């Protein structure tokens, strides 16, 4: 695996593939996923034929304009939404219910406000490792994960006693502690200020370097996508959104944001993404119309029962 990455790095090609990619071993497969939500004016097709293959240890970002269905893709992988057609395969088995092997880091941390950071992680760990780890091992594992995200100094504080960035760190620790096969991150740093976001991105790269998780991350932030990802999946605008282009990011790891700021390769990737978002999938003409609003409303309010 590691060898593969280095090989890619040396060649440092800048291929922009359309819709498909050459895979060594598929870990997670999103296969022809479409979803429709019922609305008073007939079914609304949010996603149409989303195809994506992700190999183990890969960090994939989903980027696109708001309302294009990025979160819907993630929710389908998480099992929180059911695809109308198509499905998700994890290690060759279909998944359509939520489960801890597909841990989610939610945008607004979603920690239980009545539990301390430790207890929040504990709830997840006990759920996953009950009977598999001894009490002492569970404690050690919780503390290990909290120290991974540099939260060991405040692990007995409750969410309302720590900052937004720290809450998100705990949210990540909770997800990591489940030892997920796929880590799903729904705009994990979207609600944070730029400096905190940069800190957390660095932490995430550090963790990723150590654990080599398979990650799907949703983001709005072009820099974040380029900095963190192995591949960037750019989605077309909805309705009936799908995968537009896929960009391989072949920058050497560990990546350093300051060094990369002047890196021509890095800037090239940024341009590719920006060009896709603002030229090919420009949303300007839609702003005055009703559709974007409707898309968002549907995405947010779509009930769990939207199964066909």
């Amino acid at each position, binding site marked *: 695996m590691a060898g593969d990455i280095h090989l890619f790095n040396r060649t440092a090609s800048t291929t922009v593939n359309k819709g498909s990619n050459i895979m060594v071993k598929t870990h997670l497969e999103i296969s022809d996923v479409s979803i429709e939500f019922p609305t008073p004016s007939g079914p609304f097709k949010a996603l149409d034929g989303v195809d994506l293959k992700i190999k183990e240890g890969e960090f994939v970002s989903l980027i696109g304009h708001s309302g294009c269905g990025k979160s819907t893709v993630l929710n389908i992988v*998480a*099992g*929180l939404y059911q695809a109308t057609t198509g499905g998700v395969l994890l290690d060759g088995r279909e998944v359509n219910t*939520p*489960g*801890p092997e*597909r*841990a*989610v880091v*939610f945008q*607004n941390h*979603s920690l*239980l*406000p*009545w*539990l301390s950071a430790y207890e929040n992680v504990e*709830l*997840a760990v006990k*759920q*996953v490792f009950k009977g598999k780890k001894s009490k002492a091992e569970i404690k050690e594992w919780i503390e290990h994960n909290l120290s991974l995200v540099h939260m060991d100094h405040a692990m007995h504080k*409750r969410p*309302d006693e720590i900052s937004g960035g720290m809450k998100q760190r705990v949210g990540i620790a909770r997800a990591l502690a*489940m030892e997920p096969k796929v880590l799903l991150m729904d705009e994990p740093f979207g609600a944070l200020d730029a400096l905190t976001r940069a800190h957390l991105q660095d932490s995430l790269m550090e963790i990723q370097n150590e654990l080599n998780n398979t990650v799907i991350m949703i983001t709005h932030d072009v820099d974040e996508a380029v900095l963190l990802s192995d591949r960037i999946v750019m989605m077309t605008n909805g309705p009936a959104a799908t995968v537009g282009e896929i960009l391989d990011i072949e920058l050497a790891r560990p990546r350093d944001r300051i060094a990369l700021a002047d890196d021509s390769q890095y800037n090239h990737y940024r341009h590719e993404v920006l060009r896709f978002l603002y030229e090919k999938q420009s949303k300007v003409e839609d702003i005055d119309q009703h559709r974007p609003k409707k898309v968002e409303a549907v995405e947010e309010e779509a009930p769990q029962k939207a199964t066909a």
Partner: protein
Amino acid sequence: MSRMLQNISWLEPWMLLLKGENVSAQLATIFKGLAIPMAGILAFLFIWQGAANSIDTSLGQFPGPVQVYEQSFNLVKEHKRERQKEVEFYERQDERNAKKLAKNPDAKIKVRPYTGKPTFFDQIVTSLITVMSGFLVASVIAIPVGIMIGLNSGLYSALNPLIQLFKPVSPLAWLPLVTMVVSALYVSKDPMFAKSFVTSLITVSLCCLWPTMINTAVGVSAITQDLQNVSKVLRLNFFTHVTKIVLPSSIPMMFTGLRLSLGIAWMVLIAAEMLAQNPGLGKFVWDEFQNGSSNSLGRIMVAVLVIGVIGFMLDRVMLMLQKKVSWDKSAVLR
């Protein structure tokens, strides 16, 4: 120490005044917090006295603050007298029994309980026991049912019309039915509780079920989608879901309901006791009314004030409990 004092907010300006910090500001705070409420109470007392003087009833003049004040001392005196009588009764009995034993060591000794009439303070205790029992029974039913209907919208739709139907029913309407049902079903030779107690308890429960039930249901159904998603991703089982997520997040609403319920329970209790003849404050008021002495109205007025004070204190106790169990210590509870 200073932290403890901070919690007693009305003491704070006094402490600062003693320290000599910003004297005029402290005096203003004290004036606002103490003098203005006092002025309100004084004005009320004057109006009361004035109004009382011009109301003549068949039981004499309506009692003003002064008469009520006197009657409250009478009630304390009566209580002491009754306790004294009780002590003397047991002393006499012990003496008699001792004599009996001295004559015949094998004699069977009977200890008879004192059966004097309950005093005002005994009646307060009875009322408190009854209201707390009724409230507990109601809570034990209302909280689980509230959680169930909050979690299940179908169940909510099924129960909601019934809740809305029974919620506004007066305790006085329930009481005859409850009395008959209790007399029919609660038959035992050696009953653990008096029938009047059971009747009052059930009436209180029936009337104070609803706020807790509705508020718990609302609290439970208002759990954010995010936390529900967390629960789904973790695959929490029903029990863990309820104890770790549903209960804590609905505690604020639940307590709002519990406080409303306890308030209603206390109000209902007085009416229930009047009619069920449960030896509590309601019966006290009723007996004084039937008694019709020149002191009766004053004594009833004492009961009215005591009922008010106890109702207020019950609410404060619930508030303290709420602050204790509430996870959100920053929330302003009042």
